[in-house]
């Protein structure tokens, strides 16, 4: 099971964090700090895996963003890399050649995408098409609500 997923920039700024195992906030911050500094210190030619405490860390860099997942000892590293890649592909399809700024400004969308791909640390949907379809349907739902809602919210409806 995946324990958590972190997205951070080359400058060490956290862009996304998803925890599938509960930790107190302090611990989360400590883990994040440690991992970011360890991974940023690694040279580009190095393998994408490292052992960290009793977990395995799988990370991959896409442009200026690092995608980093922690998995358990028995989990498959290559499969995790595939999950990361699948996620990047999905973001790319959704935003249209995704860049770091897309994720910064639409961070909630990135989370929604991740929630469709993974539930509770396990891969939920492996079909890209299905994920995008679900996301599109939910966006549509929001759009339908908005125009009417806009007036209502502002006391004009």
């Amino acid at each position: 099971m995946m324990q958590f997923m972190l997205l951070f920039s080359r400058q060490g700024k956290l862009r996304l964090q998803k925890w599938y195992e509960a930790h107190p906030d302090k611990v989360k911050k400590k883990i994040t700090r440690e991992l970011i500094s360890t991974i940023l210190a690694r040279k580009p030619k190095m393998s994408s895996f490292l052992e960290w405490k009793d977990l395995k860390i799988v990370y991959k860099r896409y442009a200026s963003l690092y995608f980093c997942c922690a998995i358990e000892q028995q989990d498959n590293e290559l499969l995790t890399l595939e999950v990361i890649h699948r996620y990047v592909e999905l973001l790319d399809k959704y935003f249209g050649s995704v860049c770091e700024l897309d994720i910064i400004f639409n961070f909630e969308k990135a989370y929604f995408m991740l929630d469709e791909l993974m539930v509770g640390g396990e891969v939920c949907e492996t079909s890209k098409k299905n994920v995008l379809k679900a996301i599109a349907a939910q966006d549509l739902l929001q759009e339908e609500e908005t125009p009417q809602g806009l007036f209502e919210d502002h006391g004009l409806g």
Partner: protein
Amino acid sequence: MALRKVKGNLERMFDKNLTDLVRGIRNNKETESKYISQCMEEIKTELRQDNLAVKANAVAKLTYLQMLGYDISWAGFNIIEVMSSPKFTYKRIGYLSASQCFHQDTEVLMLTTNMIRKDLNSHNMYDSGTALTGLACFISGDLARDLANDVMTLLTSTKPYLRKKAVLLLYKVFLKFPEALRPAFPRLKEKLEDPDPGVQSAAVNVICELARKNPKNYLSLAPVFFKLMTSSTNNWMLIKIIKLFGALTPLEPRLGKKLIEPLTNLIHSTSAMSLLYECINTVIAVLISISSGMPNHNASIQLCVQKLRILIEDSDQNLKYLGLLAMSKILKTHPKSVQAHKDLVLQCLDDKDESIRLRALDLLYGMVTKKTVMEIVRRLMTHMDRAEGTMYRDELLQKIILICSQNNFQYITNFEWYVSVLVELCRMEGTQHGGLIASQLMDVAIRVVAVREFTVGQMALLLDNAHVIVGPAAARSSIAEVLYAAAWICGEFSQLLANPKATLESMVRGKVVSLPGHIQAIYVHNMLKLYAHIIATAEEEDDSEMIEEVTNLLLERLPVFVSSGDLEVQERASCIVHIVTYVQKCHKHGDKVGADLALLMTGELNPVAPKAQKKVPLPDGLDLDAWINDPPSESEEEEDDALEKEIFVKADSSYKHRKEKYEPSEEELQKLRDARRAEQASNPYYVKSSALSSPRPNHNSIQVDEIPVTAIDLNVSLKIPGMTSLDKYQVVDGWQDGGKKRHKKQKKRSKRKGQVSSSSEEEINRMHVVNTDIGEMPEGAHLSDDYEIDDRPEDDPHRALDINLDEPLSPNEVLPTRTHYEAHAQRKIESNNEAKLIPSEIPLKMKTRNKKERKEKKEKTKKVKKEEKKVKKKPSRDANLILDLIDPLKETVISDKVPVAANHINGIADAKNKEKTSDDLDFWLSKELSQTPESCMDGTTKTASPSTPSSSKDDSKSKKTKTKKEKKAKKEKDRDKPEKKLKKNEKEIDTLSRNRDEYEETNGTVTQEVEEKLAVPEPQPYSRLLAEDSHIRIVYSTAAMDGVMSEILVCIKFISQSSKPISKLQLILPDSSALKMIRTPGKLVFETGYRLFPPKEMGMAVFQRKQRQPDPQSELVNLPWSLDPGESKETQLSFTAEDVTIPHKLRGSLSYIQDGSSSSSDISLRLEFPVTTFLSGKTASRATFTDLLSSGQLSARSSFTLPNCPWSFPEVLEELTLGGSLAVVECVDQTASLYGRSLHGHHVCLLVKYQASHHLTIDGKSTEGILLSNALDHLKTTLMQKQ
């Protein structure tokens, strides 16, 4: 009013939205924290407004800030408000925020139960989806309990989108609420066959996760997964299934065999690296679980290693890394196949990636052999010179030492070389492993006597060159520690020093004072040792000049240490100063004190086992208060020992000799002694090298004192002359010819020594002997650890999930459901009304109530049906969310109150199925054993077949009563360990066939031999004739039911001797006072073919089962079949006996009708149950046997003698063990010990002695005297009868 509202709204239009916030933070990089605190204030005011849109916007901003590391837990209630919005847009934001910042201990969560339930059951599938994903992040124990049933309902949703998410959420529910696992599991299992591949894959994911933590409970699912594996093409799912099998195979080696074929096919065919890697991993797990016995097993390893080689050779660093990782797993079991790829691993040491280099190092650790150790270490040493970064260099250093020292220096053949390696390692700059090197040096010097002198020489040089080693760079490293070892070794073995005075001088000279305190202390102390040695030798030689010189040297130098800041140094130094002054005084008087002085330090170092202290047993009868001055005498203990060994009354010498070890002859002893002397006299290789045949050509014999210390070659700054260098051990080519010569010499030597090289396959003899004794241990203590360690931490949620899923569900195992408020439950609810008003108290009260209700429910099972009907009326869902909780009268959560009927029935039906599956699993696997590997290819079609025999079972099953089910469960438990039993059984058979001369306890590994004999059944029950007439012959055999205490199973076999069919067989067996037949209504009888099978085998699905006409009260047993001419059939009856210590008899009769004749015939029967019937030898093992004998429980003794036994010893044993009532525990020559255990738990131990003159003695000991005498009587009569 309206105007103000509009005005407020217009203001809000200018509120910051999320984008503004993000942009603002980016624009205020310098004053970020200030900007954010300002935003926080704004958010707080926004949250105070009652417009949901504003709140949602605020919460979205908070979520962003949370990611930046700000605490937003104070906004919990606002988040819930946003979650409860009817609008999807806000709900989505609310749930996102909740999943980011809530966790299981968040207190506001208990307010959300009803709201989440409402969302889960929403018409909009995306509402439910959002709730499901959110719940997966913050589910708590209470939420899991209250919502489990709603999640279960979603499993049957028509939308795969929801089913899939619900399945995944179930895993989290199980973790938080383990009680849900059993009732929910049948439904989860169904999802494995869901039409939607996503749902299927989700179910596989969940079961895989569950099974990895507690594999044994999921073994029965193997056939289902096997089918999925061979039919699916979804790699994501395949990986999970294969991983699951990896967890299951260690428990069931037969499964592994079945898997090898499809897995190797996948390895060959797949192009997905992740799948390939998973397959290899599981194949490795399989190969570990079946350690041998596979013919094509080598091929699989080779295939794996080959594929891994491809991975390692790949340019992708990730594959390289994983390849090395998997390789190290193979290494543990099949080192040979990995060692072939040594070149590749060494190559990886040059990799740019440090993590790959470290992996390669790990591999090397396991790859060394006696042959390769030198080369590998040489490579590592050169690496170390080149390696940049102290971290990696330290790692290398540590690995070198670990490689060399593993398993008590198993791979080191030349310790002189190893010492040189260690000395070389001392020169590494800035290492943190000085202590490690030091301890190795001391270890070698102490344990390898042969190189001690060499080591001492090297250490003297080290001391002399201490300034080089402890250079200016040494401050940050711990390399000075080696001086600790050097000083100690030189002092301890001062008699081996070539020039003790020079060494002493080098010790007092230099910057010793700058060393750490504990090293100084050792220096000072060992100066005394050296001094004592020098004085003693000088006195012998009357060298008074020398004495004066060293005494003055010490007296001049020691005062520096007396004023040391370190207490230890100060104390030792002042003590030594006084000793030296005293010695000086004595010498002035002309007294010789050398010998006395040396006495201070005499005594040989003895190894002590690491656990010795812990294992010191408290001697018997030691009272720490009373006997403080009177320790218990040794002789007493010895007597005790003797008593323990002499367990039998008349145990003669042959019995005692059993345990004696091989004793070397006088000649061999002499040889050994010679060898030892030769070794002790001097170093066999280096000092006397000129006297012996010429040593290796490239080896300079070292004569330390001849080398001028001053001649430091400045070009090679760190080289210390005289100090050994590894160059002369160059192993590449020169080693080979040198080595061959060495072999010859070595062989000669080993002959002389009478030693045999420990590993004959690798023809490298050890040059030096390591003292590998376990060390001194207290008497009677063993080194073994029998502590069982559970490696899972106490709070691991998976511990709670170790639940047997094959047991049928009991009616009270249902998911807690929310029910409508029932009138008759009013009173109970009322008592809880108070609590309801204060939400924070709800969970606590509810829990206590649950317990109460569970108790009540047992009494109320009759009522349950009524209530079930009521539940079917669906409770109305109220739209008011949070208010729901506060209003207790509307509806309430009654957990664990009423089972849902559908769920319940479903569960039981499924439990039955499961019983079947575990049958099937055995069948599925056992079937495989007889099949050739080729035929398991089409496993898919075959997995379907087991249902055929079991389907016929089903009709009868429905009529089965509970008692029967329980019995069957027990039987199944027995069957769960057939492997073990067969093995033990096999051992017995082996003993019988091996002439009993060389009986040895085999260890647990399954060998090829065992595999072949798997088909051998249990010892054939010993059948006796019951009755016979012209038409029918009846034989019977008895067996104590294994696992079912106090039950005797009687197999009665009817053999037709008539030419006509016989029908209407009827047994009449009236109970006697002490023996009763177990008459369970509807009990099954087994109808078998033509052979007597032991009861265990009867359970196999291949036999058809029929129902006997129940007749509970009378002694009549109607047999439902008829006998055709020449046919034989069998029935089984169970009996219980109140007293198992006396023999029993049972009289009865059999009536039958022969076809064609109108009247029935009668035969009278006499069933005999000698006491041995009630004994079973199945639990016999040497350990329990000796424990029993030494425990003193066996108070009763008895024996008999047969002076003229016509039988040979094996025949006697065969006779005694017939029917399995007694088992041979140990057998030496013509003596054997047997063990049996009665149904009521009495132990019977027998010692059978057979002397050459056909004189047979059987001694018995037991916990029950009557049982023993009856058993011996019976055995005696049986043996006499045979005569």
